[in-house]
């Protein structure tokens, strides 16, 4: 299956050729243009891409190559200037801000280089956050929070605040939070960038485990060692996909 998807998604022009049933992410001729003063910056330049359900993909490239914009577009935090984006069969461009928020809430989990934990809240409260904003009933939340924290090996640290946790533990809390709404895709932005190599390895191993359980994972990273774990590596340069 990964072979099929691998040949299907290709850098450059032409619609991605993956079957619509298989691709969970499908970009067709997507561009994202920013107006900076007088000049236009093409952060994404005619990108077509298909990522199959259950894939583990890494996006690499130098700073300013457009990988962050790519991740924002994939995560529905940013919308393409042109082209179309099908996420799990749903057309994303043209959706209202609230609908995009709903898509993020239900289908996408995010983890970040700087963890983005709310510092005044315990690990458990941080993991609970997405459910609070989704209006999940309070009595259902506690169990789910505990299950997610145990799944990342932090069951006993549920009531620690982020400043009482190590970097690796913080990122594991962030992963538990990303998974608590049971998304179909996990988007990771330099997840090991702020970690020592041992913690980084643990995080990558955790992501691999989640992937093996069926989760689609897309990682943006500088680190070749992280990318080596991905079954598919996408390289970007000047807003284009240049190499697989």
């Amino acid at each position, binding site marked *: 299956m990964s072979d099929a998807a691998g040949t299907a998604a290709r850098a450059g022009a032409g619609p991605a050729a993956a079957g619509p049933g298989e691709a969970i992410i499908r970009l067709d001729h997507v561009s994202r243009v920013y107006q900076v003063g007088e000049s236009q910056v093409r952060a994404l330049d005619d990108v077509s891409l298909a990522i199959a359900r259950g894939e583990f993909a890494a996006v690499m490239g130098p700073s300013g190559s457009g990988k962050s914009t790519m991740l924002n577009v994939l995560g529905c935090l940013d919308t393409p200037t042109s082209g179309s984006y099908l996420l799990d069969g749903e057309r994303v461009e043209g959706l209202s801000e609230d609908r995009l*928020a709903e898509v993020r809430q239900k289908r996408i989990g995010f983890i970040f280089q700087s963890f983005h934990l709310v510092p*005044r809240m315990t690990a458990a409260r941080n993991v609970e956050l*997405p459910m*609070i*904003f989704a209006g999940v009933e*309070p009595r259902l939340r506690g169990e789910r929070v505990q299950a997610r924290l145990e799944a990342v090996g932090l069951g006993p640290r549920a009531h620690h605040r982020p400043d009482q946790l190590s970097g690796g533990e913080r990122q594991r809390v962030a992963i538990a939070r990303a998974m608590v709404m049971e998304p179909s895709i996990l988007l990771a932005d330099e997840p090991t960038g702020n970690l020592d190599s041992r913690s980084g390895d643990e995080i990558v191993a955790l992501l691999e485990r989640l992937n093996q359980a069926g989760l689609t994972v897309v990682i943006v990273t500088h680190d070749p060692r992280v990318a080596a774990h991905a079954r598919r590596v996408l390289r970007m340069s000047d807003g284009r996909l240049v190499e697989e």
Partner: protein
Amino acid sequence: MRRRDLTAFAFQTLTLHRLRTGLTLAAIAIGVTAVMLLTALGDAAKAYVVREFAGVGTNLVIVVPGRTETSGGMPSFGGTTRDLTLEDVLAVARQCPAVRRATPMSMGTAPAEYGGRSRDIRVIGTTSEFADVRKLAMESGEYLPPGDPRQGEHVVVLGTKVARELFQGENPLGKTLRVGEWRLRVIGVLAAKGISLGIDYDDQVQVPVSVGLKMFDQSGLFRILAEAVNPQAVPIAQREMRAVLTRRHDDEEDFTLITQNAMLQTFGAVIDALTGGLAGIAAISLAVAGIGIMNVMLVSVSERTGEVGLLKALGARRRQILQVFLVEALMLSGGGALAGIVVGLIAIAIAGGIWTFIPLRASPIWIGVVLVLAMGAGVSFGILPARRAAALDAADALRGRH
């Protein structure tokens, strides 16, 4: 998002910055307390004036010598002001059908002495009708006897405090009290009445008006009090009295007629304006406190840009972000208002305990108004920062840009 989650979320944020939150709460509380105290003071002043003038009686018309343009002020002096005389009183009583009874009033202060005890005392000279007009009751003995006001006997009626202090438990009836150069026989003691129209009826004595005028060598009366047949007849009585007295004073209106309504209206209007002004000034401090809330919220939004980005990435809607920050602003203003109300109530209770003569009371209406004002300030000054947070671009905010 559930209401409890929303408040818990806001509460957690506010308790993080204790000092900042505390100072903002204090600013609101001070504004609220100021509004409460000043309006309570204004209301108390009005209640005080109303209470004082209500003692005048609804069908009373008071004649003051001298012409003043406004009712209720000090009469002007000089000019061709004629004295108010006992003949004027008799004319009013006889010639004005709308007047049930009229009574003269002279006033002076003289030393009173009995059994070696002496003190200065206010002496009112009047007639038997005065007790009816001023609704005075007797504790013992008789009031001044009826008869020609120009020929009074040498008798005196005592206020209860005077009787108590000068006679020290002795029965004063029939005893002789020395007032200035005069020796007067005590014929009665008034029942306690307290202060009315600026006169403490417990701390004065009353003598026949002819005695009062002679005692202080006065040619004219201090006041004439006339009682209309009923409250509705007051304007008619006023018209009749003005006509009779003007005719008697060589067609010159050199006197002033005062009624309870006129006084209440004048003072009431002045005090209402004053209360409104005070409340307005206090409300300015609320507006300043509101700006404080805005400032704190703006700082909070800019500190928490990354958090807003995160919440958006986690699926929070624009409206939810707006709510989160607005609820924080509301908790600040509401909490501050409640604290201010509590402090205000305590301050009013303490002040009311110290200055018992002022009827200080926190009015529920003003508490409601000030609560609404404070919450309104919270919302109106909180909406801008909340909007700014809600409008943040998720991707930019995650990177800490705004």
